[in-house]
């Protein structure tokens, strides 16, 4: 059966050009970059070139880019590394309630180490309020971490504004840009970002590689101690093919970003328009305007998400409900709860995330399938029965009122 992949926020296929760029480094130029002979030198040169490419794409210096095993490690390193190295200056951190678990669970781990964390609420669109952000800053606040764009509902946060506030109070600013890098334009200097996390597999690069940008001069405790790789700050034999693939993927993504943004925004708004027009009891989650061009997120009343996903999967549609990392869990998405959805409709949410290969036909096919699926599941739903009999009211209608 034809598969329509609409889960690009979860992960993406490696582009052929990227795989091609990686291939020589598995079995030919496989040397250890730390070694002196040509096979190692070529690997070392490839890592240096990849570092320069990635640094250039975000307006940083090569020496400010550190390779990691992915977005999660970059988030952990930024928060734990900075907090632990700067604890003498203060033990308070600020983040938002809708961060990825790689940030939230890291904050919880830091709380166990004696740090205090403020989890800022967001508004109904998922936006952090700059005034509330400023109000949360205390004399002992050392670090703020606010994601560039949310992975579930696609909301883009006002990063430049938040970073400026942070700096006005001598607070270092980290952003998890895993969903934004390669999609939105990012210049760390212009935006005032001190620390930034990114991951290759979200932009048609390989899984298992990411990066942390850390502004020159920041003190950061190591997460992984050992050899002298990454200038003594992150040990392990470099994942040369992964690093090369990351740089290639990012280079291509950033070059095409403006065009893809325009194309995907049109597709996204087409999808949102059709759903709202054709499917009753549906609610768009996240901001309608400050939104990643590839993100569509709806809650559908009277049905539960996993059943919807499985039925869509049976029709060849690959989508997700909640974030990928928590699917399989029994808890509804913390992001949907944070934007004020009641549990019962948070359970019935669906995320469709477009990619560079997504066509209008794909989107239309998926929405047709979605309509059938929802009819099916609602027919089976005791809640819908109760609603139709007038025994309960619609939560979405109540929220909209």
């Amino acid at each position, binding site marked *: 059966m034809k598969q329509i992949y609409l889960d690009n926020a979860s992960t993406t296929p490696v582009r052929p050009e990227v795989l091609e760029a990686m291939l020589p480094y598995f079995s030919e130029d496989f040397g250890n970059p730390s070694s002196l002979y040509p096979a190692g030198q070529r690997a070392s040169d490839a890592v240096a070139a990849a570092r320069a490419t990635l640094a250039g794409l975000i307006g940083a210096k090569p020496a400010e880019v550190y390779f990691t095993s992915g977005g999660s490690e970059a988030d952990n390193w930024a928060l734990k590394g900075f907090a632990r190295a700067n604890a003498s200056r203060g033990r308070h951190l600020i983040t938002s309630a809708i961060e990825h678990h790689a940030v939230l669970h890291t904050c919880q781990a830091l709380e166990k180490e004696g740090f205090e964390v403020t989890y800022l609420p967001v508004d109904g669109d998922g936006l952090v309020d700059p005034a509330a952000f400023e109000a949360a800053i205390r004399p002992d606040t050392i670090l703020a971490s606010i994601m560039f764009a949310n992975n579930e509902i696609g909301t883009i946060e006002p990063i430049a504004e938040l970073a400026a506030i942070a700096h006005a109070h001598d607070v270092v600013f980290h952003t998890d840009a895993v969903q934004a890098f390669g999609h939105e334009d990012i210049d760390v200097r212009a935006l005032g970002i001190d620390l930034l996390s990114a991951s290759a597999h979200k932009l048609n690069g390989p899984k298992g590689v990411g990066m942390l940008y850390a502004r020159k001069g920041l003190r950061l405790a190591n997460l992984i101690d050992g050899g002298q790789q990454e200038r003594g700050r992150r040990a392990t034999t470099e994942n040369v093919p992964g690093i090369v693939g990351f740089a290639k993927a990012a280079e291509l993504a950033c070059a095409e970003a403006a065009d893809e943004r325009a194309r995907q925004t049109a597709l996204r708004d087409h999808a949102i328009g059709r759903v709202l027009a054709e499917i009753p009891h549906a609610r768009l989650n996240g901001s309608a305007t400050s939104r990643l061009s590839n993100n569509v997120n709806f809650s559908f009343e009277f049905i*539960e998400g996993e*059943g919807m996903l499985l*039925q869509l999967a049976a029709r060849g549609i690959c989508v997700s409900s909640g974030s990928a990392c928590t699917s*399989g869990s029994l808890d509804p998405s913390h992001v949907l709860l944070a934007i004020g959805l009641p*549990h019962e409709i948070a359970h019935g949410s669906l995320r469709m995330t477009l990619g560079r290969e997504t066509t209008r036909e794909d989107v239309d096919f998926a929405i047709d399938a979605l309509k059938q699926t929802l009819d099916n599941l609602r*027919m*089976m*739903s005791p809640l819908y029965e109760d609603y139709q009999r007038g025994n309960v009211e619609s939560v979405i209608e109540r929220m909209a009122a």
Partner: protein
Amino acid sequence: MAMNYSEAVMDHFTNPRNVGEIENASGCGTVGNAVCGDIMRIYLDIDGDSVIRDAKFKTFGCGAAIATSSMATELVKGKTIQQALEVTNKAVMEALDGLPPVKVHCSLLAEEAIHAALWDYAEKHNLVIEGLEKPVSDIGEHDHHAVELVEDEDEL
């Protein structure tokens, strides 16, 4: 963690048996709650000889919740009330070739929904069904935790 559903579960989920309502059912029971993500409602049509002539369900919940509802209604159809009481969560799970640990609670919910429908039948007809206790109407929160612990044990 991906769901590893058996073929039987997938079959009962994609082609659920006995979906629907029974008008003027002998008994009807609803368990679970939407906050926890699962609600099951089971309708039973029971004849004068205490035989379950028909069973229907409506379920709000995950694939496993729908599959266990479908299987539970299949299993009780044609059975006497006493036989139906033997359709435990284990029986439902076995009939479905097992469930992922995190989904075991769905089979408990199905058992409870049958019990709730039988309890409703008993109340309506002023009967006492031997071995039937008043079912917990809300089998949500508490149970999840128990199940998560089991899962941990199982995986480590």
